[in-house]
């Protein structure tokens, strides 16, 4: 067992990146429609896309439908996994996840409010609304869960589930009483949907992500020290209050943006960091970035399954993540109960 070195860090990240590229290629390949393009034709269509020229039917399926969808799945999965790993470090609890904490639910409700009241401003402003919802939800969860200055795991999880259910109900209420046609469907809000997005949406998502990702990467070592306890971290030189605040903001921002474009997709932030920890260890300087790459791969593949398994019909991607995530969560809960309570 050696310590984390630059070589080890970068080779693991490179490996995970290749895995992601492979997943994206797979998801271009498969789909309800048979697409067969020769390599030169593929290249021609790709350059046509870059120069905004019209594409052939096959080219359009590949580059206007499947590629943006795979990239979106990657961004959403990566963001949720990174946010999950950060919430876990912040709350010192491996069961934390944006969905389980109610952050996703809060984001969804405020995103839908934004969509109703700010229709003219387009997608770009929705994440800001969702961000407020995320912050509100997490404050609510922490206020409910805190008992005598501590955050017991059980009350935290219960508070998260309740807050999530509450906001989900509000979303459904709004969908039931309004008849605005441009709102995403109930399925989107309950189970996630990655379809029908264009490249400008992807660019907006990336831009919103950027500050959050940069901050979380910068805080990675502090997350390691926080695993020793907040006071120990402080005694090792961490500005603990600032670190906690920035982590809250960054992880909430990333969650909010992801929810704005994909609805509610659960368990990615729970499963992915845990798998990374099992394989590569818990060092956050690797975990935070590796979670993004592997979370991206994970959701690209889940989405591939979702749109091919009952082809030509599609499943919401959240169905796949929840089918995998539910049992995983229970397994994790049982594991953490075998250890002394934290």
């Amino acid at each position, binding site marked *: *067992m*050696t*310590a*984390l*070195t*630059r070589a080890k*860090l970068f080779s693991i990240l490179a490996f995970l990146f290749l895995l992601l590229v492979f997943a994206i290629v797979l998801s271009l390949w498969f789909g309800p429609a048979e697409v067969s393009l020769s390599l030169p034709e593929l290249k021609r269509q790709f350059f046509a896309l870059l120069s905004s020229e019209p594409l052939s039917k096959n080219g359009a399926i590949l580059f206007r439908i499947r590629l943006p969808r795979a990239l979106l799945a990657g961004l959403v999965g990566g963001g949720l996994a990174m946010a999950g790993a950060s919430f876990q*470090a912040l709350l*010192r*609890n*491996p069961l934390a996840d944006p969905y389980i904490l109610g952050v996703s639910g809060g984001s969804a409700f405020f995103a839908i409010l934004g969509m109703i009241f700010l229709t003219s401003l387009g997608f770009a402003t929705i994440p800001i609304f969702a961000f407020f919802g995320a912050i509100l939800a997490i404050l609510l969860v922490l206020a409910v869960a805190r008992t005598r200055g501590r955050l017991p795991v059980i009350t935290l999880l219960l508070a998260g589930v309740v807050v999530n259910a509450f906001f989900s109900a509000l979303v459904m209420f709004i969908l039931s009483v309004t008849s605005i046609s441009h709102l995403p469907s109930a399925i989107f809000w309950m189970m996630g949907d990655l379809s029908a997005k264009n490249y400008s949406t992807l660019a907006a998502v990336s831009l919103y992500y950027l500050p959050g990702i940069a901050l979380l990467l*910068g805080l990675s*070592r502090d997350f*390691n*020290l*926080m*695993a*020793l*306890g907040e*006071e*120990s971290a*402080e*005694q*090792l*030189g*961490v*500005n603990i209050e600032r670190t906690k605040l920035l982590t809250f903001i960054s992880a909430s921002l990333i969650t909010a943006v992801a929810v704005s474009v994909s609805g509610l997709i659960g368990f990615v932030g729970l499963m992915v960091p845990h798998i990374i*920890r099992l394989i590569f*260890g*818990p*060092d956050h*300087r690797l975990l935070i970035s590796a979670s993004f790459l592997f979370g991206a791969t994970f959701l690209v593949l889940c989405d591939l399954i979702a749109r091919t398994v009952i082809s030509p019909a599609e499943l919401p991607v959240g169905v796949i993540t929840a089918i995998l995530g539910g049992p995983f969560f229970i397994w994790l809960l049982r594991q953490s109960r075998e*250890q002394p309570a*934290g």
Partner: protein
Amino acid sequence: MKILETENLSFSFQPGKPVLQKVSFGMDDAQMLAVIGPNGSGKSTLIRILSGVLKPEAGKISIQQKPLLEFGKKNLARKIAVVPQQTQITFSYTVLEIVLMGRAPYLKRFQLEGKRDLEMARRALELTDCEELAGRSIDEISGGEKQRVILARALAQEPEILLLDEPTAHLDLHHQIGFMQLLIQLKTESKISILFTTHDLNLASIFADQILILDQGKVAGLGNPGQVLNPELLSRVYQIKLKLIPNLYPNRPYILPEI
């Protein structure tokens, strides 16, 4: 020059309920100071203040004559290392990873540990007799081993002052004595000044150079074990009848309750 000095240190969590009142004491280089006193006498609070986690309400703390508040967090972490009573570690880090965390005060934000950091970690593991544990997961090892690993992490900080909050409270006799002997070794060989709190008066009597007795946040006694441990004072502070009997070791009395 005192390595650590406090002057009229006062602190309270709630107004009107002082936890520490006008606490003044000093520590010399390579000295071992035991802080004793009943529950709630302010021992742990004192450690939290000395390590910069809590700000004193009044009074001064200085390290080598420089006020504590003038140290940045990282610089302070290079001077003072803390071993808490118990450490709950959230994820399954290896022992080496935990010890390397002690190098954080020396690293820039995106810097990974280098050769020197690894060397310091190895040396800390050696000193605490934890070398064989390096690759083990922290939640697989025993309580006594874990406390040594946390000490190794503190030593990796290359501190001049070590603060320990009831370091032996959860250890059996074998590990208690082993741990204290390790501290003595650190004091004499690495010239580290050590402050530890304890409820075990005899442990303090046997191992400490100086003893500070806190009673309801006030200094009730300060001096070497032979001077400061007297039955009247201790009986008053602990509100039970205590007897002192001469020890095998000169000037280190043995304390027994009267039954």
